[in-house]
């Protein structure tokens, strides 16, 4: 009887333990993927194998273990390394990025009437 229960507990442990670990690790990995490696700009610190990325991963892991939230860690990173460290652009830059499309659509919009006139003449 005791043995049976022990097996059940053991199975439960086997089933639950790995899931718990991976989920916490998954949170960290998802966070790493939002942080840019400043040595190799195109990669996140999750993809990169530079010492910079390794060190940042370790330090962020320590901070997670200390119980800091994602937002607090991100803010700390932003104050130390500046805006470049994050893959998410600041909102005031969004207009700059989309301005070419806005200008293009304005040009098309203004010229539609002219094209229509040309078509009508034909």
């Amino acid at each position, binding site marked *: 009887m005791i043995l049976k229960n022990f097996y059940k507990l053991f199975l439960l442990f086997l089933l639950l333990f790995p899931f718990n670990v991976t989920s916490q690790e998954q949170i960290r990995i998802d966070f790493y993927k939002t942080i840019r490696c*400043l*040595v190799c700009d195109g990669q996140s610190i999750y993809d990169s194998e*530079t*010492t*910079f990325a390794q*060190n*940042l991963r*370790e*330090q962020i892991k320590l901070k997670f273990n200390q119980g800091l939230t994602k937002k607090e860690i991100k803010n700390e990173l932003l*104050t*130390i*390394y*500046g*805006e470049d460290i994050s893959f998410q652009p600041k909102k*005031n*830059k969004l*207009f*700059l990025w989309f*301005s070419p499309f806005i*200008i293009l659509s*304005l040009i098309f919009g*203004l010229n539609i*009437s*002219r094209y229509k006139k040309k078509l009508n003449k034909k």
Partner: protein
Amino acid sequence: MNKIKIIIIPVVLLAIALVIILNLNNDRNLVEKSYPPLPQIIFEELSYFKNERIGNNLNDRKYMINFFASWCAPCLAEHPSFMKLKQKGIIIIGINFRDEESNLNQWLNEHGNPYEYVIRDDGDIAFKLGLIGVPETYFIDKQVIYKKIQGPLFGNDIEEFL
């Protein structure tokens, strides 16, 4: 239609110009961005060879903080110019970044020790100072960083910053 165009086009151009100018100002702020404050661990930790704390010894002096490691080849390239600086009496704090103790000893024995204090770091100090890669050198006056150089430094360049 032409009247509308005459009004709209200058307005759009003005708006674009405004946005660009505002963003340029932002970038200028980034360039003048202040460096992070010096972490206190540097002054509280026992230095490696001297077995003493830096404490308040350097409070009103100009000095340099240099991140180095025995596994880092560019560090070796800038090493001779640091030896010359030591002879001139310039204080350099060496922060040994993610290194083996035996390798550090061997490296300094082989090439000489230009550092007034050596502090061993597993990444904590580097993180707080915003290190990107070794070698990296900080120039400090009255406990405030006024210049940061990433990559190896050579003789004349250093004297420009001091």
